[in-house]
């Protein structure tokens, strides 16, 4: 049967093009793969290749013709031995019809099936009950955040031989901030691996290992340096499960100190919470207390997804009570009401909690009872616990050390507006790091960071108190 050759498209947006040149003449024998013509658009040139064997029976569109619509028959091929002149008088359409005819136009596309963010919070929101996290009467020990993180890793490494730690100075040096202290001694050099200073490369190696099912903990000396690795964190770790249709999970933890330390300047002080929280396919955790640091890191290591675990250098040395035992887990994605109150909700996370808690104490002295919520996980965000509080207090201040534009607090404000607008007695306020690269000078650095006074002032403002 004779077959029509159709004008091909160079791209899905191409509608027409020029038939620049025929490279075969009528009567020529054609093999599959032979280049028979060239077409052009303003952007590109393409060679038209024969699919089928046969004889070029007739050229329907001449050399040099402009504006040939895609899918117009441009020539007819007759099968070997077929009557060429008969074939020339008309061919069957080659192969399947173009897709355009099969896909419903945009108007017919169904609306996105997932509920909008706001709708996922029930009308009467319920606060997450964190009281069961510390079993009643559980024995506690006081330890630093640093020790809690180390214990979390050690316990999980004992529990699962697929867990290993890699990063700069994590082994022999015992960690640039001593978070991996003792791990080399207990687990050996195969599982506690000093890397060269090569963030992009070792992040990729970690992700590759995780794709096979190992569970790497990749330590960045600080998250500032993870900028060199962010391609693997986002393009390789976060997206592969989706792009593989659910086949390729990536159980990996990226952890390390994040945000401002003290007097280390703009390149060593960046808070990346908002950046990573923007990306579907990642979980983002940012604990404040040692118990949350421990319980959340253990959950992160067990989690089958890539988890960004944002620590803070200043918090490393702070001590908190932590339950004893090696099965203490805090669920990812649950906030915690750390101080109940009725007048205003203050939401924060990570080191931002120091301002939130300090402000609550100061406000109490002035007769304002603030309810303080530690978000703990930035993504997925437990907005329901925040909303439940706002439905009670009708006012909210969100606090973070990161920059204001497109920040985590901006997201909190928006989510409250979507889910609890009618409950608000005042616009949501935020207190953030200032919109400047972190300065070095002690006085300027202090000004660039949030402080308790700013949170107190914001809380009073939303309570309409002077």
């Amino acid at each position: 049967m004779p077959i029509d050759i159709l004008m091909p498209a160079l791209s899905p947006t191409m509608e027409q093009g020029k038939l620049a040149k025929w490279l075969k003449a009528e009567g020529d024998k054609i093999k599959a793969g032979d280049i028979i013509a060239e077409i052009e658009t303003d952007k590109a040139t393409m060679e038209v290749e024969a699919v089928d064997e046969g004889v070029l029976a007739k050229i329907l569109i001449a050399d040099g013709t402009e504006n040939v619509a895609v899918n117009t028959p441009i020539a007819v091929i007759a099968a070997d031995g077929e009557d060429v002149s008969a074939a020339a008088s008309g061919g069957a359409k080659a192969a399947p019809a173009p897709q355009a005819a099969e896909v419903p136009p945009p108007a017919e596309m169904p609306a996105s099936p997932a509920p909008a963010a706001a709708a996922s919070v029930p009308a009467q929101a319920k606060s997450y009950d964190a009281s069961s996290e510390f079993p009643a009467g559980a024995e506690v020990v006081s330890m630093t955040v640093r020790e809690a993180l180390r214990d979390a890793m050690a316990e999980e490494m004992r529990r699962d031989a697929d867990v290993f730690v890699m990063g700069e100075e994590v082994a022999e040096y015992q960690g640039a901030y001593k978070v991996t202290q003792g791990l080399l001694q207990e687990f050996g050099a195969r599982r506690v691996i000093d890397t060269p200073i090569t963030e992009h490369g070792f992040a990729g190696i970690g992700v590759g290992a995780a794709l096979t099912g190992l569970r790497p903990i990749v330590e960045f000396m600080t998250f500032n340096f993870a900028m060199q690795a962010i391609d693997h964190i986002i393009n390789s770790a976060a997206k592969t499960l989706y792009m593989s249709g659910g086949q390729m999970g990536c159980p990996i933890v990226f952890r390390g100190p994040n945000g401002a330390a003290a007097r280390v300047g703009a390149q060593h002080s960046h808070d990346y919470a908002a950046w990573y929280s923007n990306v579907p396919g990642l979980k983002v955790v940012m604990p404040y207390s040692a118990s949350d640091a421990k319980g959340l890191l253990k959950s992160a290591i067990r989690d089958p997804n890539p988890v960004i675990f944002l620590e803070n250098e200043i918090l490393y040395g702070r001590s908190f009570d932590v339950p004893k035992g090696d099965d203490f887990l805090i669920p990812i994605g649950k906030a915690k009401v750390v101080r109940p109150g009725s007048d205003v909700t203050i939401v924060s996370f990570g080191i931002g909690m120091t301002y939130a808690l300090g402000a609550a104490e100061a406000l109490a002295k002035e007769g304002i009872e603030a309810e303080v919520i530690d978000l703990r996980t930035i993504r997925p965000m437990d907005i329901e616990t925040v909303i439940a509080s706002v439905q009670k207090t009708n006012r909210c201040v969100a606090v973070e050390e990161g920059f204001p534009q497109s920040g985590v607090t901006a997201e909190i404000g928006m989510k409250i507006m979507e889910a609890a607008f009618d409950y608000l007695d005042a616009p949501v306020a935020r207190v953030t790091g200032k919109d400047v690269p972190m300065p070095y000078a002690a006085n300027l650095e202090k000004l660039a960071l949030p402080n308790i006074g700013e949170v107190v002032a914001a809380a009073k403002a939303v309570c309409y108190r002077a």
Partner: protein
Amino acid sequence: MAIAARKTKAGAPAKAAGKAPAKSAPKGAAKALSNVPTFTKEEELHAYREMLLIRRFEEKAGQMYGMGLIGGFCHLYIGQEAVVIGMQMASKDGDQVITGYRDHGHMLACGMESRGVMAELTGRRGGYSHGKGGSMHMFSREKNFYGGHGIVGAQVSLGAGLGFANWYRQDGRVSMAYFGDGAANQGQVYESFNMAQLWKLPVVFVIENNRYAMGTSVNRASAQTDFSKRGVSFGIPGEQVDGMDVRAVREAASRAIEHARSGKGPYILEMQTYRYRGHSMSDPAKYRSKDEVQRMREEHDPIEQVRGRLTREHKLGEDEFKAIDAKVREIVNDAAEFATHDPEPDASELYTDILLEPAQA
């Protein structure tokens, strides 16, 4: 366009195409060719079938793109078939493969189904990624194919990571990380070389030097155009290989894989090859002459080389070739048919496969 009637003489040393600067002529290839290994008839037949499947599959993909059935980027492997087939002939079950976006050939060579690959190209639910990955992003845990990556160079670190996992588990597997001459200039490649050699990871780095990165020739982008030397400062051995001769590829691959498997660390193979088609479907084709392309096709075609040997040395007849061809076409047509009529993914798939559920503790 003058069509030269000359066909490849089997066994004749591969020559660089006329237009290519002398520097990129396959020097190493000449060395390798002085002792080109012979294939048994079965091996020749195997290589012929496998390469032909890739060729026909890619031609079909090109046509389906032209018909609007395939969208976005679509990078064809036509011309480079001997590289992945020769490598696979030397690898063992369980060895992993990872590559960039020019990945259809690698998937077929790993034994992935034509239907699933083609249906992914058309964005249908029967595709390997259920239509959510596309041409550049497909995977098969079962076949140890780890993608399908769109960021130039990323697969090199990831592939070293696969090698790391093999080292960690001491399971005797070798990972093969394929990347282009353009990708070879990425920084993370050298970060990965360093760590792979430092830790003696079982990984073979396969540089598919097809002479161009999009429209940029190797000479315009690379200070050191002998890619086999790119590991010298790390002490990683490397070879230049005539990547148009599947026998030379298999031979070099065996050496490299054995080196990696025996715990000696990584190995670099520079495969000197050529892509006949544009970088992707839309390609201005102004950066090289038609003559250059034509000469490569006529004088070095990997499939024609095998066909020539099968005809002359193994007396395979026209009918037998026709039968192979018909079988291959049947597979490809079936894949195209499937990929055309398989439905698009259900709209509910939009929100699936973003995160996995944690196991209950």
